[in-house]
């Protein structure tokens, strides 16, 4: 069969237009000294990368990002598997109603999730209850690092746990029934069945591994929720603030230094991030061979 290459032309054109082209230009920018005030594009080699790697603000942002990525991916894995087990164990109407409820957060804009879990939304009534209602005189202080890091992680898991749930439900459905029947014959308890059949099937599933990889690389560009939090905490104009993920840091470099923002420096951060993305995508593609069939 002749391959209809003409069908591919528009997509290839778009890939170059919005993907490869801009990325190459970003790369060139990152090798030059460029700002809107001084758009000369003097080549400076890897100067920007050296500036960047020797800047503690960058390393702080990397640490914050890694913390939030690890936290949210682990939490959404746990919550997602829990939800999936609940769903697969219920029948009929309950199943469809609850699975519809559980997927709602996927549809909520991440920036709105930043508002949802903000100090003045969820914690407004909760704190009123704690402070006045129960007369404890205490409240949940959302300005302590441990609270706001947890809340950012919770917000992210809030959005993405349903995805893990959907994937896990599909995995559970593909476990052969005979395994459970055999376990029943041997008189295994429900807990034993979970321990020996269900749990290993979920954890060792290549599908789950690939989904987690995709989530991890996605979480690396985490922006909206920490960005919202930089406002809640009054850190919006502070470079290298404690909630600055790499993306938020780049945004702040871009927006707070009006007109003379260090475009070249920002692009070099972006290129560093990009290389992580490209590497992870290569791994994902290798592991999900069905995509190339």
């Amino acid at each position, binding site marked *: 069969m002749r391959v209809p290459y003409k069908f591919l032309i528009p997509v290839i054109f*778009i*890939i170059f237009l919005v993907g490869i082209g801009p990325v190459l230009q970003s790369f060139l920018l990152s090798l030059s000294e460029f700002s809107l005030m001084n758009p000369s594009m003097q080549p400076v080699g890897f100067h920007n990368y050296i500036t960047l790697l020797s800047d503690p603000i960058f390393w702080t942002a990397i640490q914050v990002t890694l913390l939030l990525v690890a936290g949210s991916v682990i939490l959404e894995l746990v919550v997602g598997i829990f939800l999936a087990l609940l769903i697969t164990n219920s029948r009929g109407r309950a199943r469809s109603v609850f699975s519809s409820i559980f*997927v709602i957060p996927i549809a909520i*804009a991440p920036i709105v999730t930043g508002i949802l879990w903000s100090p003045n*939304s969820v914690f407004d009534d909760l704190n009123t209850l704690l402070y*006045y209602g129960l007369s404890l005189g205490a409240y949940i202080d959302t300005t302590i690092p441990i609270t706001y890091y947890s809340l950012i992680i919770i917000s992210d898991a809030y959005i993405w746990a349903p995805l893990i749930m959907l994937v896990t439900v599909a995995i559970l459905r593909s476990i052969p029934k005979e395994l459970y029947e055999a376990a029943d014959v041997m008189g295994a308890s429900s807990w034993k069945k979970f321990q020996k059949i269900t749990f290993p099937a979920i954890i060792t599933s290549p599908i789950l591994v690939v989904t987690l990889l995709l989530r991890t690389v996605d979480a690396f560009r985490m922006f909206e929720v920490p960005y919202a939090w930089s406002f809640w905490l009054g850190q919006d104009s502070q470079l290298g603030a404690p909630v600055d993920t790499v993306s938020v840091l780049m945004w702040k470099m871009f927006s707070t230094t009006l007109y003379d923002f260090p475009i070249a420096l920002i692009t070099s951060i972006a290129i560093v991030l990009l290389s992580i993305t490209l590497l992870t995508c290569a791994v994902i593609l290798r592991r999900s061979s069905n995509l190339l069939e």
Partner: protein
Amino acid sequence: MSKTENNNVKYIRYILLVSASLWVLWPISIMIEEGFRVDIGPLFSGRGASFVGEFFQGQGGIRFSTIEYVKALRVEAYPRLLTNSVIIAVSSVLVAALAGVPAAFTLALYKFRGKAFITYSLLALRTISPFAVLLPFFIIYGRLGLFDTYQGMAIVYLIINVPILTMMMRGFFKDIPKEIFEAAFMSGASDSYILRKIALPLALPGLAAAAVFAFVGTWNEFFYALFLTGTVTKTVSRGVWSGFSESIESFKILEFDELNAGGTLAIIPAVILALLVQKYLARGLTLGVSE
């Protein structure tokens, strides 16, 4: 004995299901409630207590007020943002579908050199850090006058929509039994004929699902909108954040009631549409990697 045990298990399961739904619904209901300026504070002391750092922010009352919602809808800010979002999302999804469907057809049915390259590029485009492409867009749009225009935004959103449309449609074409295509090829039909008359009609529900999914993604997108939209093409998610009444985002005032009312209005269409296509959410979100 075993019957009561079974019943107990059933009750525990229901309790867990309901508490898990609370995890999802509780923050949303608080947002809707705060949008109505309701606060349980007055029940106890006459004041609501919100603590942002040392700042005490008493606000709200037990009597609910629709003022924030009315303001959002009546000042025509929300209708305008909604129109902007719809124009941008629909045109971007349309272009993505026109480009993506034939490519998806080819990716689903043929093996060829460069297939890995295209798949990889689409995967990378989906997960790329926006900053890696954004600054060139920012500079070029400034020169070409595409900044804050519908065309400009529709082009930028191809970054997220083309991978979604192509990879989802690839999955839907793959779901069609191979025998159908084999029979068609045997009878000597051309590729475009098979795509238009056989593959596309069979995958039409899938195309609708993919388009809706991409629409929701564009609707919810915040980052590109934050950079590249201004007063003319500001989208819903951007407008919710910067406030309905404010025309240009120069600085941000924290108006929580307004934010909550805006957030509520923004998620209603997205949630409804996403529930319509919930069967395909996993496929869309992972580009079919999870199959």
